[in-house]
């Protein structure tokens, strides 16, 4: 029978103590944030290695596509592009009209947003959390709580910023809440992630309010974290219980939470990433 000697026991005691101390410090304070970012930066090359090998296999698979298939993909993209261009024409017109009406009413104009494209390096390393890692960090002017979208809608927000990468919590994460409103009638609610990338719950909608299956939910902009008006989800089921004063509403996220390869980061026009890095450099 092997009995752990006292040296191992004291080591064990001190290391466990150290882990508990570092855990509580990391949870309650911000002292360890820089250390965490530095450690993440040290280990990010591993993610790059796996990511680039996956990219390589994708490239090899794509290079075996036939000419016909490529042509059909190209055709599809062309049609999509045309559709987008057409809707953009309308958008410009609406934007102009909107700003004119706002001037008439003497209200402040909408803030303009600038976007930055980032690649998704890794998704979901932990079964509890719906998170992705993107290849932009402090160097590109990314900040904590920044909104991340894909081509369809809001994806999530930045939860941790490292030097060259950052971590994004998706709206389907169990701990994530986002203020939303229904486009049709402006009814406000809060959307809560469920851990599944297909379902988002709506909280606190009273069971006599006007909600329909198929209603579009957009960011309400309340709380100031998410920019107003970006689409979030579509309602897919509404359940009513006599004992519960609120509806049980499930909705389907519009953004492709588990498929997006490229994402966009949103900056307000006064926090342009390039300007910010330039001012930071001049300060140093």
């Amino acid at each position, binding site marked *: 029978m092997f009995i752990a000697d006292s040296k191992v026991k004291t080591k064990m005691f001190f290391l466990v103590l150290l882990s508990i101390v570092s855990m509580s410090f990391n949870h309650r304070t911000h002292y360890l944030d820089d250390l965490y970012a530095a450690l993440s930066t040290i280990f990010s090359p591993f*993610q790059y290695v796996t990511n680039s090998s996956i990219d390589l296999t994708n490239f090899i698979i794509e290079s075996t596509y036939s000419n016909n298939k490529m042509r059909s993909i190209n055709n599809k993209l062309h049609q999509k592009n045309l559709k987008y261009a057409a809707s953009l024409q309308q958008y410009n017109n609406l934007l102009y009209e909107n700003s004119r009406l706002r001037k008439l009413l003497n209200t402040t104009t909408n803030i303009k947003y600038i976007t930055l494209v980032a690649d998704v390096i890794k998704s979901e390393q932990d079964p509890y959390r719906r998170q992705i890692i993107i290849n932009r960090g402090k160097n590109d002017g990314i900040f904590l709580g920044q909104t991340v979208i894909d081509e369809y809608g809001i994806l999530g927000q930045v939860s941790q910023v490292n030097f060259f990468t950052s971590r994004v919590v998706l709206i389907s994460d169990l701990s994530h809440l986002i203020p939303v409103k229904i486009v049709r009638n402006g009814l406000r609610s809060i959307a809560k992630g469920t851990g599944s990338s297909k379902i988002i719950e709506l909280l606190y909608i009273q069971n006599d309010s006007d909600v329909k299956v198929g209603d579009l939910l957009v960011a309400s902009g309340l709380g100031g974290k998410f920019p107003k008006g970006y689409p979030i989800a579509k309602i897919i089921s509404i359940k009513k219980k006599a004992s519960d004063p609120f509806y049980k509403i499930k909705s389907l996220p519009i953004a492709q939470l588990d498929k997006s390869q490229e994402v966009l980061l949103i900056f307000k026009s006064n926090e342009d990433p390039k300007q910010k890095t330039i001012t930071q450099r001049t300060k140093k």
Partner: protein
Amino acid sequence: MINRQKYYFNIYISITIAILLTTIPLSDYFLIVEFDWIVLVVLFWLIIYPEKFSLISVWVCGIIIDVMSGNLLGQNAFSLLVVSFMSIIAHRQIKTMPLLQQSIIISFLVFVYRLINLWLNGIIGIQTPDMLVYFLNPLLLILIWPLAFSSLSMFVGKTYKF
């Protein structure tokens, strides 16, 4: 001296491979096969050479898992330390066991590891979406461990029979 350096080289290589395995992105349907590779490698070295692989390196491996998975600094380190201590206490028995029995013990250790992690996550306020998948994963380890063990024993230069 050369032999000693070779050991450490092998340990580093095996842990690097484990880190690379944990970074492979998997979709929702394959979460059940997202094994804790680093934990497996640590347990392997602790069973084979408990005197070569100190608790401090166990702790460092735990910190690596924390940083890779975005958990609190020290969370996985804590649970890994507890499980490692259990395996150090019983390493003689585990080492002499037949491989199938050994894999049942390993599966139990990883189960404990995940249980402690679940408890710590509960304290912080993170919930687990799918308990079944989360705890079926260690059970599947019974099938995986013989493979992992025999491929890891290549680093030691010995071959073990099933």
